[in-house]
């Protein structure tokens, strides 16, 4: 009750005018700020980006370093020197979790960027061209939608191993996740374009002499972006999780720090050496949770039907 009162009290004529001048994004941000869960998600995501980008300076050990073995400190529980403990093989788990943030964000965000790019182009063409081409692209999206991602990547990894005699790099996982993961975005883009292209303001700009390019880039694309942003945010969470699974199963990049790789190192000893598994597991949990909360928050904030 008290809170409401103070809010009303601040609605002076001046900031009413300010509100009037507020654009779509300002309105969305105001709504977003009120959503505690979404805000928490944003902070978690920003936190992981921060430690990801600063891990090379923050982490006491370089990536994939078994140095603690030579220091005689392998297999130790969390301590001041090794906050998340060390693995039996000599990894400093704290350093690995920090380095892993960079690797997993790289895959999660990068794969999503590729998926969004492909999904936007295919979805847009499928939405715009009625007839053969549009139908063909819709069918292509449906085919990709039915392909189970994980087995395909595991299979590709084996084939790659045989052909090149070397495991996957993170970039390859990123590319595969992107190339096979765009169908959801394409469906949304196609549906949104079908919805928007018939709206009166599109017809009106056409009737008042706007060019096709102006209509598409100024009026259609900006109006379909919000569901794409929301879906992309949720897709990042999914891609991070898939990368962790791939690395955990041993099909990932053995030379780059990722959370899945560290979990794999520790999980056989989980009864005695829980820290090697738990900390990267928690990192995965929080990162995925963060992106999901952020996605939900964005979805609420950007949904015009919920706007006050």
């Amino acid at each position: 009750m008290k809170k409401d009162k103070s809010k009303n009290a601040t609605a002076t004529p001046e900031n009413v005018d300010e509100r009037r001048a507020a654009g779509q994004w300002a309105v969305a941000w105001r709504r977003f700020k009120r959503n505690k869960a979404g805000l928490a998600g944003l902070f978690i995501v920003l936190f992981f980006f921060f430690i990801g980008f600063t891990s090379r300076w923050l982490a006491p050990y370089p990536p994939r370093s078994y140095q603690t073995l030579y220091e005689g400190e392998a297999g130790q529980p969390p301590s001041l020197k090794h906050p998340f403990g060390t693995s039996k093989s000599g990894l400093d788990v704290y350093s690995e979790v920090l380095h892993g943030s960079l690797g997993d964000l790289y895959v999660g965000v990068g794969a999503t960027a590729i998926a969004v790019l492909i999904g936007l182009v295919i979805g847009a063409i499928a939405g715009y061209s009625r007839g053969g081409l549009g139908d063909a692209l819709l069918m292509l999206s449906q085919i990709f939608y039915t392909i189970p991602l994980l087995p395909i990547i595991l299979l590709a990894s084996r084939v790659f191993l045989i052909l090149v005699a070397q495991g996957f790099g993170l970039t390859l996982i990123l590319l595969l996740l992107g190339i096979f993961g765009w169908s959801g975005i394409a469906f949304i883009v196609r549906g949104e374009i079908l919805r928007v292209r018939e709206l009166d303001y599109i017809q009106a700009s056409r009737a008042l002499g706007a060019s096709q390019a102006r209509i598409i880039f100024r009026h259609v694309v900006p109006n379909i972006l919000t569901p794409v942003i929301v879906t992309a945010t949720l897709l990042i969470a999914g891609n991070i999780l898939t990368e962790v699974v791939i690395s955990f199963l041993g099909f990932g990049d053995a030379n780059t720090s990722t959370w899945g790789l560290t979990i794999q190192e520790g999980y056989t000893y989980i009864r005695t050496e829980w820290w090697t598994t738990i900390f990267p597991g928690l990192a995965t949990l929080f990162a995925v949770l963060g992106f999901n909360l952020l996605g939900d928050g964005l979805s609420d904030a950007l949904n015009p039907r919920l706007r006050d």
Partner: protein
Amino acid sequence: METLLDVRGLKTYFFTEAGVVKAVDGVDFQVGRDEAVGLVGESGSGKTVLGLSVFRIVPQPGKIVSGTITYEGEDLLEKSEEEMRKIRGRKIAMTFQDPTTSLDPLYTVGDQLAEVIREHQKGISKNEAMEKATQLLEMVRISEPSLRVRAYPHELSGGMKQRIAIARALASGPSLLFADEPTTNLDVTVQAQVLELIKELRESQKISLVMITHDMGIVAEMTQRVQVLYAGMVAEVAETHSLFKKPQHPYTEALLQAVPRIDQRKDLRVIPGNIPDLVNPPTGCRFNPRCPYAKDVCSEKAPPLELTDEGHLAACHFWRSLSLTGA
């Protein structure tokens, strides 16, 4: 009167999977300079498609199949897309029926008006365009125009949005305005204001008007001449008072009877049935399955559009013998 727009034998078909929908099937349509013409018919009678055809913005899978569209003596169907873009907005303009979606939600009112202004006046600065946008808002009677010019559509009422849509249509000084059901989604009181505004603008800006509507009340209020469309064909054309007084086509009579009257205590008459399937329209006169006066000949032969009186055309085999009730 000088003819501004002259549409002859226009056929606009939609090539759908279910078959060819003959949305406009051989329609003649004229608008004189400074004239206000009503284009009347039920939903699906082809009135909006006729409008879109003049602008050559018929949505896929629609296509203008044949006919001529002459505007100020120039054949619009001969124009390139680039030339057409210069005509749209500058010479002919259109407003659409749904005020909730007629403005782009992402841009301020000023931005959207300025966009149209700058499209047709290259070299005008953004500030000048905004200034002009404010004047346009004033012209359509928006209060506090300098404040509203910075408003987003979601901050405005339906009536305001419709008036702004009209301002946008008139931004580049067209001489012919197609108003597609401008008041359908508005409150009655707001409807009256918007109609009053259109009337005033017609006088002050010297604009010819095509009022697309299914509301006979609006036709009586706003137009000098009416063209009644049924299932993509012309049923009747007449001066407004003549059409109301002495309709010559049973469909027009039915439309007039379907208007609720407060001064007569009788049940509202509705037109039985629905607008026909335009893929396989009825043979003969397209209105015959719903016509209370229909005889055998009506389903056999399509009636020609005949001159029944001075300036009065009707497409009915029995216009001579029927005496239909007006309003």
